[in-house]
């Protein structure tokens, strides 16, 4: 049946009206919050963030300096290299005659300076049969978890990070400062609070991400190599929550009792309600500047291993405020930290507001609609050629046709 547009429109009107009121309140609070950020002295912030009083029900960024600090970019080196890897996948489709998934990893290496060059590639890999499952044999018995949906997405992210080291080794000149860029967050948020079995966390982190990061850190010791992840339009509130913690006049127990994770009913904490980090830094940062360095206190990264705690800063690219994440071993090296800042800014300038390397890696990795259909047909055809039935489920058909 068609949507009752009359009733819907009425409700939208009401919603828009209330939004307008909230908007006005929000603008006021934003400017107050920005002021508060600027006033937050580093010692006070640090003091509030240590000790048992720091235990809160919300995630907040751990700041090494004043919340409102800003840093201008350094000038870029003459010769440098930026590379990126991105991925795309076709998830397991139960309507297909056989269970399989496809992960396509695409990457690019861009060399700037005296000898500019570019290398683009992509590498698909099929997940089927045993590869479609995470398995573990424990004394208690065998465990088997299918790789699909969110887990496949996580596996893909791990594959992306894994792909960096060989790419750097083979295609990036060893004598040029190199920045390896990833699209999205280094923090595997999908693992948080999902109650995945231990096996999943082990496979994804201990056997996946951590070794990949180890390899990069190992390379970084022998050459100028920084790793960073670029989050465009970040919706995170960790810096805002850092301000909330800074402003909080209650003790930890009271806060835990009264405050909700997203919103606080109390003033002055409520000043931060609904504000995003990037909204704050749009006010605080001039184009080109980055914020102070934060580190996340997410429990997920606790499992990453030594030196791989994820740090981040916000960067005003001129077009937007993006979040740049990196492992601790990059963040703590002033030169590498500065390199990420400089080169990401350079990349966004070359890329009309978005890092070129990430765009190109994405273009290499992306599986378009046509390719998805072609993949399906390829699977069907291969099966038919071997005399197998390909009658898809009735559901698949009904989804594509509007029965009357």
């Amino acid at each position, binding site marked *: 049946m068609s949507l009752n547009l009359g009733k819907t429109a009425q409700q939208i009107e009401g919603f828009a009206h209330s939004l307008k009121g909230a908007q006005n309140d929000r603008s006021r609070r934003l400017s107050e919050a920005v002021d508060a950020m600027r006033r937050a002295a580093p010692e006070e912030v640090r003091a509030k963030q240590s000790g048992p009083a720091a235990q809160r029900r919300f995630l907040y960024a751990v700041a090494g300096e004043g919340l409102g600090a800003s840093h201008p970019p350094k000038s870029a080196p003459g010769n440098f290299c930026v590379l990126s890897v991105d991925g795309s996948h076709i998830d397991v489709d139960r309507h297909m005659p056989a269970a399989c998934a496809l992960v396509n990893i695409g990457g*690019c290496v861009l*060399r*700037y300076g005296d000898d500019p*060059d*570019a290398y*683009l590639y992509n590498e698909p890999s099929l997940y089927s049969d045993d590869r479609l499952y995470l398995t573990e044999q424990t004394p208690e018995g065998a465990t088997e978890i299918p790789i699909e949906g969110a887990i496949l997405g996580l596996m893909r992210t791990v594959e992306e990070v894994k792909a960096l080291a060989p790419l750097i080794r083979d295609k990036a000149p060893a004598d040029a400062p190199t920045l390896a860029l990833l699209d999205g967050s280094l923090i595997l948020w999908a693992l948080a609070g999902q109650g995945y079995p231990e096996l999943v966390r082990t496979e994804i982190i201990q056997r996946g991400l951590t070794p990949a990061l180890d390899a990069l850190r190992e390379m970084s010791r022998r050459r100028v190599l920084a790793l960073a992840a670029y989050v465009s339009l970040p919706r995170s509130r960790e810096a805002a929550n850092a301000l909330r913690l800074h402003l909080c006049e209650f003790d930890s127990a009271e806060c835990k009792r009264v405050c909700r994770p997203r919103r606080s009913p109390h003033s002055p904490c409520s000043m931060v309600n609904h504000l995003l980090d990037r909204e704050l830094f749009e006010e605080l940062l001039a184009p080109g500047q980055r914020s102070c360095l934060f580190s996340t206190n997410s429990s997920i990264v606790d499992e990453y291993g030594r030196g791989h705690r994820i740090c981040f800063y916000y960067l005003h690219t001129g077009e937007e405020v993006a979040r740049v994440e990196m492992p601790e071993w990059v963040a703590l090296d002033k030169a590498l930290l500065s390199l990420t800042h400089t080169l990401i800014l350079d990349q966004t300038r070359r890329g009309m507001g978005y890092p*070129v390397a990430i765009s190109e890696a994405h*273009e290499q990795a992306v599986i*378009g609609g046509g390719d998805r259909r072609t993949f399906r047909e390829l699977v069907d055809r291969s099966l038919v050629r071997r005399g197998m039935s390909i009658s898809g489920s009735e559901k698949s058909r009904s989804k594509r046709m509007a029965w009357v």
Partner: protein
Amino acid sequence: MGPAQGRIGEVVEASSRRCAVQCYRLYESPPLGALARVGDPPVYALITEVSTEALDPGRPVIARGEDAATVEEVYRSNPQLDKLLCTRLRCLIVGHLRDGAPVAGLPPLPPKIHSFAHPCPADEAEALVSSPDFARLLLNSDLPSPDEVIVACLRLAGRQAADGQGLLHRAGNALARELSDQVPRLNAILRRLT
């Protein structure tokens, strides 16, 4: 390391009448009117259009040089362009090898996709270009401006041939027979050959 033996590129589209060749390197294409020897058994393809465009038809090319002083600078600061753009040749198939000799006319089969395209040796080009069938094929093709292509082709072949004047005469005669009822058109072509 360049493509082997002066290879131009590869066939990416092919039919009996025409084919498209993608050049291995951006902007490294033979000129309009040049002949390519494509595949094995060889088919002769006349380059009727040289184009450079985004490799991915879904990605429009945008202006990037507002702050750059030169075009070269645009390419230097965007090294990926070399890989995202490609130079393509649209070719008319004009001849093939029959009994070991190049003859003008359509081959029994088009070249395979990914067949290599090489520059056509001067003596083979000469044999083709001065053939009456060559002129007829071109003039009767559905090219938007066959005369331009003919002029480009003959000028080029004339420069490369051992006896350029002789070649132009033979080719000119072949054209004249085809265009004997269109003197102004014939004249316009011939004028540009001298």
